[in-house]
């Protein structure tokens, strides 16, 4: 029983790490540009398939390094052409646009790479279990969590200590003043969008090594990421981090005791949070209205 529980908590943490990577990207874009990026799951899929395509040439490590920035470049192009014209309009339009875009990306990947799942090979030493007792902790799962932790750490360092990061945080609070201080807001939004898509691409590569690739794999991660943001508190990146891990572990633990509710439990958590503390765990008052 303890082993089962431990197994599910570990699982929950790993899934939670994915939610965190996805949700942090979504959160960055939402906070600065007021865009709910429905196509975020689509960018995750693009990242995974790029990794699949370049692995034969550059190997797994090369793909891990190259695929996320390539995804971010695609994200930049999309932002420049499709999303930028909508910044001046009601934020609902960009939400609607990314919703249509998500369909196009999903069908596009199906068209290019086919509807069947694709396996992505990982280095053999990563696929070994670390010990016989804890058979479920393979090297790759540990590796995923470590990579996610490092990247999230770097993201927080970037936001805290670099000029770009400070500008992004300032823009989140008051974009008008930031613009009045002579900072190129368009550029800031583009870079911020690219950072968010980079995270989506990275989760795509990591997920591909664990689960293989399917054109629909991104859609399943989108809703939990929304909930991670709502639970953690809109506007707060540490909140998103905690929210993602929390719902990952919660659904893992529920899977032990009441498997049928393992997906629904995160929605219940969200409802409880909204009832008792509408701004979310770490959110600031008034961010959601």
């Amino acid at each position, binding site marked *: 029983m303890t082993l089962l529980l431990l197994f599910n908590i570990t699982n929950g943490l790993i899934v939670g790490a994915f939610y965190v990577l996805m949700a942090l990207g979504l959160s960055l874009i939402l906070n600065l540009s007021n865009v709910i990026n429905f196509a975020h799951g689509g960018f995750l899929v693009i990242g995974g398939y790029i990794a699949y395509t370049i692995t034969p040439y550059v190997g797994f490590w090369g793909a891990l390094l190259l695929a996320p920035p390539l995804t971010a470049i695609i994200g930049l192009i999309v932002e420049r052409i499709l999303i930028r014209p909508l910044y001046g309009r009601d934020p*609902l339009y960009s939400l609607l646009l990314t919703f*249509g875009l998500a*369909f196009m990306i999903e069908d596009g990947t199906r068209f290019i790479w086919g509807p069947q799942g694709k396996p992505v090979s990982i280095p053999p030493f990563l696929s070994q279990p670390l010990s016989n007792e804890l058979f479920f902790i393979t090297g790759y799962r540990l590796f995923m969590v470590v990579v996610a932790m490092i990247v999230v750490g770097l993201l927080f360092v970037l936001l805290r200590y670099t000029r770009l990061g400070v500008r992004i945080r300032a823009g989140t609070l008051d974009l008008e003043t930031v613009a009045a201080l002579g900072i190129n807001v368009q550029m800031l939004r583009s870079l911020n969008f690219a950072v968010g898509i980079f995270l989506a691409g990275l989760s795509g590569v990591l997920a591909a090594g664990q689960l293989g690739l399917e054109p629909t794999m991104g859609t399943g991660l989108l809703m939990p990421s929304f909930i991670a943001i709502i639970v953690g508190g809109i506007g707060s990146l540490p909140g998103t981090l905690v929210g993602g891990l929390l719902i990952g572990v919660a659904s893992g633990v529920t899977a032990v005791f009441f498997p049928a509710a393992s997906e629904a439990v995160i*929605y219940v958590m969200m409802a409880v949070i909204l009832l008792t503390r509408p701004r979310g765990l770490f959110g600031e008052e008034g961010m*959601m209205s």
Partner: protein
Amino acid sequence: MSTEPIRKLVVLAAIWIILALAPYWMAPLGGYTALATRVLVLGLAAMSLNFLLGFTGVLSFGHAAWFGLGAYGAGLTLKYLALSTPLAIVAGMLLGGVCGGLLGMLLVRRRGVYFAMVTIAFGQVFYYIAFQWSSLTGGDDGLRGFARQPIDFGLFKFDILSDADNFYYFVLFCFALMVGAMGFILRSPFGRTMIAIRENERRSRFLGIPVERHIWIAFTLSCFFMASAGALYALVNNFADPRGLHYSQSGDFVMMAVMGGMRSFWGPLLGAAVFVVLQDYLSSITVNWMSFVGLLFVLVVLFFPRGLLGFLQRGKA
């Protein structure tokens, strides 16, 4: 009397004549009556969503939940409670509308994209309930084993089960009732207040309008209309499906409303017609039909933010 009201009356009469004669002109154009019935039902759903989106300015992205609850309400009534079509519709409407109204109380303080986000998430709760509660809802397979019943007028029976044209006129009758109610509400002082909130929420608040309460009432009414469309949809297919509650279904309704034109009363019906016909046609020639719909939608959002109807009206003016 100026020409404007006369022009409006002519347009209105034309719309209803086109709708009333649909079984006669659909067939020569290569369509079939069942397609027109689907357009009416999905059009009613898109208009219900737009009742909130277009006239209060609040986007709910979880409205499929009320649509789906309406469908299950109607289906379960026919299967377990009573073999009566009108009763099934009323039951579906009540189930979806009451659930929507109760949840609405939690939602009304949110605005803009956050309202959309929270409604999606709550809509998904109902999707999971319908999906997991297999003993009642049939789970993933959907709810089967019920059929719409002939309407009994005492003297004679109106057979809507086997006669597609009769069923179309029955749906058109329900559609007219709902759309009439929507139009009536929008013309009332309450409807004017909704538009005032859309145009300038802060000013409305300063005028002493209880904004939250108005949004809640508009949301609840919209849920009732949506649930009635869902109940009709269950009757169209003699089937209710958990995917009818999924957020992608909500997205389809939003697409219909925005494609048709969300600032106009009839726009969403046009959007639903385009969506259904396109879906019917494209899915017969390519499996990737969603990307074409997605592309069309992206183009509409970028270039015709007022939708197809808005674009046509601008061309006329």
